């Protein structure tokens, strides 16, 4: 199992959820597809791509819901031969978030949904409401940028 967190407040509820739901992998992301935290087995998964695609599925199904005059779907579930995926939105003081849960045959969608409810509540509790109002980067970042882009393109 590997864990990586961009936003530390999410870690404790996340690890608990993975354990309770018996999930293989859980990724917490923004609606724009940026990974905030993940926990589970990631060896076979490109996380960034998974998050981008997960966010896209939620976004497009939400837009489709709107087309048919429906409220955005709270959660989506796809069952595969060996894995299922569960995608769900939850609102937090940090803003809306999307959670991708990948699970195997050793658990069930029923358990995933049951414990997702608790997880969403825990995220809501734990999320901070802060945005920066100060500069992040030093003013002379451009030399670094030039250097890294040059090495990126091997120029």
């Amino acid at each position, binding site marked *: 199992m590997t864990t990586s967190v961009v936003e530390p407040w999410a870690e404790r509820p996340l690890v608990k959820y993975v354990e309770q739901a018996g999930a293989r992998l859980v990724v917490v992301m923004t609606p724009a597809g940026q990974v905030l935290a993940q926990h589970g087995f990631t060896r076979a998964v490109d996380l960034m791509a998974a998050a981008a695609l997960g966010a896209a599925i939620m976004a497009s199904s939400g837009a489709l819901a709107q087309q048919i005059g429906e409220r955005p779907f709270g959660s989506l579930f796809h*069952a595969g031969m060996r894995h299922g995926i569960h995608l769900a939105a939850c609102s937090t003081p940090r803003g809306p978030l999307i959670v991708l849960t990948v699970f195997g045959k050793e*658990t*069930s969608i*029923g*358990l995933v949904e049951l414990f997702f409810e608790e997880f969403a509540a825990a995220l809501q509790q734990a999320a901070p409401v802060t945005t920066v109002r100060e500069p992040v980067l030093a003013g002379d970042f451009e030399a670094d940028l030039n250097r890294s882009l040059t090495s990126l393109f091997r120029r």
Partner: protein
Amino acid sequence: MSEALLRALKRISRVRGVRGSMWVSAEDGITVADLLMEGVRGRAIAALAASLARKVSGAAAATGSGKVRFVQLEAEEGTLLVAVAPGDLLIVALADRRVNVGLLRLEMMRAAEAAAA
């Protein structure tokens, strides 16, 4: 079909001490039909009962005892019962301590058999 499922649940619920009964998809742990008293958490029961039944089946398989037909979890405050029906379905009942388990088991097995027919 769903009429028949509900009829079976009504029979089960007539047993004294039963607080809720439901048809549950065994693989997904999701309710197919239910008849619950107020305050009974159907979703949690469906998910956890299906998971328990699956783990008990795993243990029975490990001991070479064949397929599991019926599971009964007895606890301080009541009993959770699961009968395995054909077609990936379970019949789940939640009862308090006063329940006549023999009678309840009979009703649940009857429902499971009816589902097979």
